[in-house]
């Protein structure tokens, strides 16, 4: 099965597939997709409204009276900038809090994308806040901005904390920009991001104690308190409590490590209450293997098989459901995971992401994967509902040995009635295409393999440049955004 298969000779298809004509089926995923779109609208609505509300708080306090002098205008603008900036920071924290409602609606990677987009505006607003206030207060007292800052630091309680916070915010954004560019290890970036919590916490006291907006007894104070406490609670619940609870609930233990290619291996785990993870095939967890040399690193990997719940008969002492991930050595410590000993306990955070049935909107489904990105498709293929003949799977690799879990996928396609194509061969030298050179030269396009793609859910998983090329083709086939499900895999 290593040769290139043309669209006329799919690797496998079932007899039930194209031959039997049926009346157009009810689109059973439409309601779910509509609900998800509505939730996305609600989230966008709230996200846009919250900075507006922050500005309105200030207006309601008679803030607009400040615009009667240069100094007053600078101070007024500074206060508004600070309010909106802090609101954006809270939004960023909420987006990174892995709240199930957000994750089920826009997915983990989209949430982080928005989180990143907000970083710079938030920083600029906070910087503007500091400068405008220093200028405005200074001008009102006949001081230059620097002397004013010094006087604020010395004379006004909590202001020194606010100035420290500003320095921390600048440090966090600058270092994370550098860290992204230089491709520092995830852990380095993570530690820097922990400073954000220090920056936010040191920023909070002066908001309530300096400036008249959030005085005790005002409704604005309650609103702002609720916003800050709500964000803090969301972080504690979903970033601290839920992972701990999940780790204790499932008690995962490595049962064995199986090498399936020179640099690819599957890690199989057993655990309790695995039935609660049903349907999370294709979604990912952060895995932390609790062994010397491993425990400090949490790796994001997708499940490469639908979780297997324990049957009533095999509840023994070890007894128990099964989970599996399939890992490629991408450096950064994932190579050492091959040497994880059976019996190692595993702490988890998850499942996260929308690479699952929860994202479906159509009856038809097309899955396109390359490299190690094939593995989440494997578990999605196992679990997501479709009628025989309504699913197409495209696997891309240099050679057949790169179609990881290819045998399992073929067996699943046979059992469930999915059409499977193996697209193997070298990539095209000149053409910017995700297809093998030979297929592209023969004139095949995406619709040659998946003719009904415009009316299908399309799941794409693979290296970023390759996936970008796939997504371009998918979009040019007229697939709307709500049907396109893409998971970044190289992070």
């Amino acid at each position, binding site marked *: 099965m290593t040769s290139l298969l043309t669209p006329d000779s799919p690797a496998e298809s079932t007899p039930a597939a194209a031959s039997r004509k049926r009346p157009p089926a009810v689109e059973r995923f439409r309601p779910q997709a509509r609900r998800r*779109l509505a939730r*996305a*609208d*609600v989230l*966008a*609505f709230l996200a*846009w*409204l919250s900075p*507006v*509300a922050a*500005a*309105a*708080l*200030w*207006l*309601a*306090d*008679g*803030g*607009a*009276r*400040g615009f009667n*002098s240069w*100094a*007053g205008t600078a*101070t007024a603008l500074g206060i508004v900038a600070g309010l909106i900036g802090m609101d954006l920071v809270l939004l960023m924290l909420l987006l990174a809090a892995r709240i199930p409602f957000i994750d089920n609606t826009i997915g983990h990677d989209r949430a982080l994308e928005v989180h990143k987009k907000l970083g710079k505006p938030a920083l600029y607003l906070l910087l503007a806040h500091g400068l405008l*206030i220093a200028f*405005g*207060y*200074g*001008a*009102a*007292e*006949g001081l230059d901005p620097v002397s004013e800052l010094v006087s604020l630091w010395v*004379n*006004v*309680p909590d202001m020194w904390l606010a100035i420290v916070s500003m320095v921390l915010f600048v440090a966090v954004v600058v270092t994370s920009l550098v860290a992204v560019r230089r491709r520092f290890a995830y852990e380095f970036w993570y530690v820097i991001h922990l400073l954000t919590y220090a920056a936010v916490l040191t920023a909070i006291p002066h908001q*309530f*104690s*300096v*400036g*008249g907006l959030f*005085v*005790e*007894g005002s409704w604005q104070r309650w609103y702002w308190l609720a916003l800050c406490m709500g964000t803090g609670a969301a972080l504690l619940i979903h970033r601290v409590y839920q992972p701990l609870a999940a780790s204790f609930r499932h008690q995962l233990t490595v049962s064995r490590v199986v090498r399936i290619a020179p640099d690819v291996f599957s890690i199989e785990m057993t655990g309790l209450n695995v039935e609660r993870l049903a349907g999370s095939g294709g979604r990912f967890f952060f895995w932390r293997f609790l062994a010397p040399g491993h425990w400090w690193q949490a790796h994001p990997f997708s499940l490469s098989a639908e979780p297997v719940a324990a049957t009533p008969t095999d509840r023994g002492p070890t007894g128990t459901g099964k989970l599996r991930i399939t890992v490629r050595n991408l450096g950064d410590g994932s190579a050492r995971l091959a040497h994880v000993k059976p019996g190692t306990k595993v702490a988890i955070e998850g499942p996260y992401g929308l690479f699952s049935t929860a994202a479906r909107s159509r009856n038809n489904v097309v899955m396109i994967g390359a490299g190690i990105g094939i593995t989440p498709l494997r578990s999605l293929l196992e679990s997501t509902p479709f009628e025989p003949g309504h699913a197409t799977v495209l696997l891309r690799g240099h050679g057949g040995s790169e179609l990881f879990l290819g045998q399992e996928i073929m067996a699943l396609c046979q059992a469930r009635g999915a059409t499977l194509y193996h697209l193997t061969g070298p990539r095209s030298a000149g053409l910017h295409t995700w297809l093998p050179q030979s297929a592209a030269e023969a004139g095949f396009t995406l619709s040659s393999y998946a003719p009904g793609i415009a009316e299908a859910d399309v799941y794409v998983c693979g290296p970023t440049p390759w996936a970008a090329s796939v997504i371009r083709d998918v979009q040019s086939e007229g697939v709307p955004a709500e049907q396109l499900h893409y998971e970044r895999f190289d992070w």
Partner: protein
Amino acid sequence: MRIRAALATALASAGILLAGWQSGAHIADTGTATTTSLSSATTSDKSSTGSTTAATYDGASVQTRFGTVQVQVTIQDGKITEVTALQLTDAERKSAQISSRAAPALRSEVLQAQSASVQTIGGATVTSDAYLTSLQAALDAANF
């Protein structure tokens, strides 16, 4: 984001801002109403030795939502020589902090300008307004 949601967001944003602005304007109105209704200056003349007379005048006590503000002004030889705060906003710890920062700054501004027409202090608008209103009442009482 769909058009309907975008429209809803735009409308809601406009509504919230308008509501905020309206209630803000309302606060500004009630603020001035309070200060004017409560102005009643009392004078207590004091003669000192020598050719110069120093007189002190108490300003109106002005209610703000952070507490009462009242100042006393000393006028000697037709000049404002001292402004003392008899009462400052101290409704809460924070207001007291603001007052303790704003009062010395206002005093030096007033002594320099020799009038109540000076800049308010950033971050202490309410206290400043009340301070200057009380001061103006005292100056009016002194026919300054």
